[in-house]
């Protein structure tokens, strides 16, 4: 039995934006900014990883929002190896979003990998996910990434929409990928012209 070597990802579960597909396209920006109509837009600050105490905030946020369990070693593996590829979104003192990535050589290419992305349920549709992902990709581009890879649950429409809009393509369907038996999609963003595709080892 092959172990799951790479981490899984999931963003903004289904309930985040019910009926998101039917959204009116031209006014979608307003839609996303004007959360629940009356509430004013919260001021979100973004920062990268600084010190240990943040790790617990990351862990708490991700444990709450994602279905897959990660041991503390997994968090440390990513965050202490690539602290510059971990970004936070904060509302005041509260951590409301996080992205955790890595960047490594992979079969002759430099591959970025988005391991985890989570946004607090109460702060959805504020483009926090998009902003965090863009920051991470920007940094990985500076690190000369050729491509960026991630996995997400097939049924996670909001996440797929986010990545579609960033230019990712859904490369593969991974059957029964998650512990809960759900299928995953592997997504890729190609930052450079294709070189001949190497074999993907799952």
């Amino acid at each position, binding site marked *: *039995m*092959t*172990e799951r*070597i790479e*981490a899984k990802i999931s963003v903004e579960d289904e309930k985040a934006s019910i009926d998101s*597909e*039917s*959204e*009116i*396209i*031209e006014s*979608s920006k307003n839609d996303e900014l004007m959360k629940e109509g009356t509430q004013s837009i919260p001021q979100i600050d973004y920062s990268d990883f600084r*010190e*240990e105490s943040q790790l617990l905030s990351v862990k708490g946020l991700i444990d709450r929002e994602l279905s897959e*369990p990660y*041991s*503390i*070693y*997994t968090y*440390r*593996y990513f965050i*202490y*190896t*690539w*602290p*510059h590829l971990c970004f936070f979104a904060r509302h005041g003192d509260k951590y409301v979003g996080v992205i955790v990535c*890595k*960047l*490594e*050589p992979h079969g002759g290419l*430099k591959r970025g990998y988005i391991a985890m992305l989570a946004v607090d349920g109460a702060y959805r549709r504020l483009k926090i996910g998009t902003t965090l992902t*863009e920051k991470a990709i920007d940094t990985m581009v500076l*690190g000369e990434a050729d491509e960026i890879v991630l996995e997400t649950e*097939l049924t996670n429409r909001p996440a*797929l*929409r986010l990545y*579609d*809009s*960033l*230019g990712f*393509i*859904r*490369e*593969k*369907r*991974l*059957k*029964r*990928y998650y*512990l809960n*038996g759900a*299928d995953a*999609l592997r997504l890729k*963003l*190609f*930052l*450079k*012209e*294709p070189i001949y*595709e190497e074999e993907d080892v799952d």
Partner: protein
Amino acid sequence: MKGVGEPTDFQAAAAATATAAAAATAGCAAAKAHGETPADVENCETDQDWNVGNCGFMDTDWQQKIRSNSAAEDITQFPLYAWVNVTKDFHNACSELVPGELAQDMLFGLFEAMSAIEIMDPKMDVGMGFDKYDLPPPSFEAAVTMGAIKLDDLTSAELIGIFDALFACVVSWLEGNSMDQVLFTCLYLHAPSKIKDKALRVFCTSVRNLIVIIKNIIVTAGVNEEEDFQLYGNSALLAAEKAQPSAITGLLKEVEDELVRKCKQLTAPEDLMAVVHRLRFMRHLYQAIYQVELLSVAESAEEGVNEIYKSLNVAAELLPLIRRTIDRGTQPVEGSDTPNPMGFSPRIHDRSQPPTFPRSIKIRERPASFQFLEEMVGRFKYACKVIRHRDYYSALNFFIEYSRKSGQCILSRSFLQNLFTTGIRLVHGKQSMKQFLKYSVQIFNSPPVLNPKHPVANDPKVQQHLDTFFRYCINMNTFTQFIRICGFNRARQRDKLARLIENFDTIQVDAARLDSLMNLMANERALEGNELHATALKHSTHFSTWVLYNCFRAMLIFLMSGFELELYAVHEFLYIYWYPYEFLVGFLVSALTRTENILLAQEEYAEHQSKIQVNGGGGGAGKNRKPAKPKKNKKQQRPYRQEIVYYHALLSLCGGMYKAMGALTKDGRIRLPTSKFDNEEIRYNRRFSPFVPLTSPPPVSYAEFKNIRDHMMRPSVEELYAFAAKHFDQARNVLESMQNPEQEMLDLLQIARTNFVVMNVLAQGHQKGLKRQPEFDFSRHSYFPIIKLK
């Protein structure tokens, strides 16, 4: 962890290789770990210095030793390991570290990090499923001693309950769950020979033997992936009693007869009859599956498959009777994870599972299990028909169809692969694959050089060239691989097809070479004055057409499978539908039309020849003569008519979707990627990258695509909608013209009709102020959606 991106201030090092996991079962030394690690690790083995080598994880002997023990007992053997308390040393060591710092082993990477289990975390720690007061799960012996399971004098209700639960376990195993966590939770399966009740003993023995046979069939077929099926299980348990596959049906029959005699003496035999039906179902299902394995030594495929079919028929007839009597058995307690009150110990193997996070195991409910079995028996019956398909073209069609209908079930897919390969071997003899392919080309477009009746077939030079070509086909494995790929699960098929398509290029080159050699020889023979041979060799495109046709099909399936697997974002639909519309479907139609024309010309020429010349008898093996027969049938002149019509419909539907996407995009109704990272050219190149290595069809560059699209999108939005509507209308016309259409055609018709209406509505300016992205509903057909406005 020697990543390139490793910053210099990286102070930490990861720790304690999977200590937590190992500690759960074995007790292993904890390396220096930060306070975050479970503090429960108090007792460590210190009789020697800790190193990677003696960590339980690395040492397979040690691992096996742990696993082979009945798991629950390890911890109780505390004194055996001379545990020593190192809590104090541990805390002292920790005080040297700053918060967040880890002691890291060189070999500790992501794999280890992800495999580490945090004790007491309910998502990671299997043990958290236990209550503090839970007793260890009973083994077979323990359950017998406790009186928790009966070995004799079981009531009919108890038997039915156990049988039905076991059927549910078999089904859950076939759905990809581990054998240990479903089947071997049944304690009766651990030691059937100790069961005194004959019906139960024989049934459990059958299940054990069935497991072995099913595994063999799946291994032989080789179309399984880790997500489909788990081959490995507790082999020690399985080996404990010797398999006796050939004796099983006899044993089942015997106990059935005994019970039937008993029934005759009862005033209310219904319950006992329900037991008999289950035994009988097991016998016939077993017989069918076992015979697939035996086919390899059979002399005639037909006879063997007929026997299998008969058994399946009986099994299918018994299933409704069984489903009606489910409630006569003992039922699982509500809320319990035990599939039956007696005989199961669901957690017995929890501790012997690989040290990863627990996967959720759900054993199917009984009615759903029998439904699965009913469908599976139906699929098996359908698979039996494969032996009628003795040439590549019709076999491939059968496989493609079968995969679409039965792609989810690993045993059904393996069953078909086994029947087919043995069938081919039995029909085509020793050099089966080569014969099979030769025969297939002959059936497909009937090159005279393959017609044993034709004198040119005996030309040694011709034979030599043919031999080289077909040997090459076999060595490249491309054709056989295509059929095999259809046996994999739908998600895996796509990757494998991408690689297959590349392989077609070399075969294409070789086929073209063979065709041109034939043409060259035609000239030679003409010069020699051998008009008959010259005509037969002239204008040959047989082999390249055959290869190209199959390549186009692989390309089309590859491209369209992306819809089924939900790999395409809506904004990508445009170029995906464009390619088959502009090129691929047209290529398929012309390959088939060309083939029909060749057949027609040959027919006419043959008629002409037979009038002017008495047929000189050709040599060749008697068996290979048969195929010439159908050619005499007038209907055979247009053997691809139906498929061509289908492709015409496909062409219009692709055209409709392509233009609809153009119109919707221009109308601002499609969400497009807005990011600076997006690059349509790269996406386009990626999507069509498997086609790039092919010489034919030549790759189409992004620039070409862009030109064509720009041209297409020039008219007004309303006009574009109207163009799309026109295509859907054409598709409708083609589909309506079909006689006795299959369900798929009716579904496509429905799609064409609906989209025609929707496009017209949009052409007339409906919902003009409201730019919503429509819904694309693929529930009718996996290739084409119904476009829905909201």
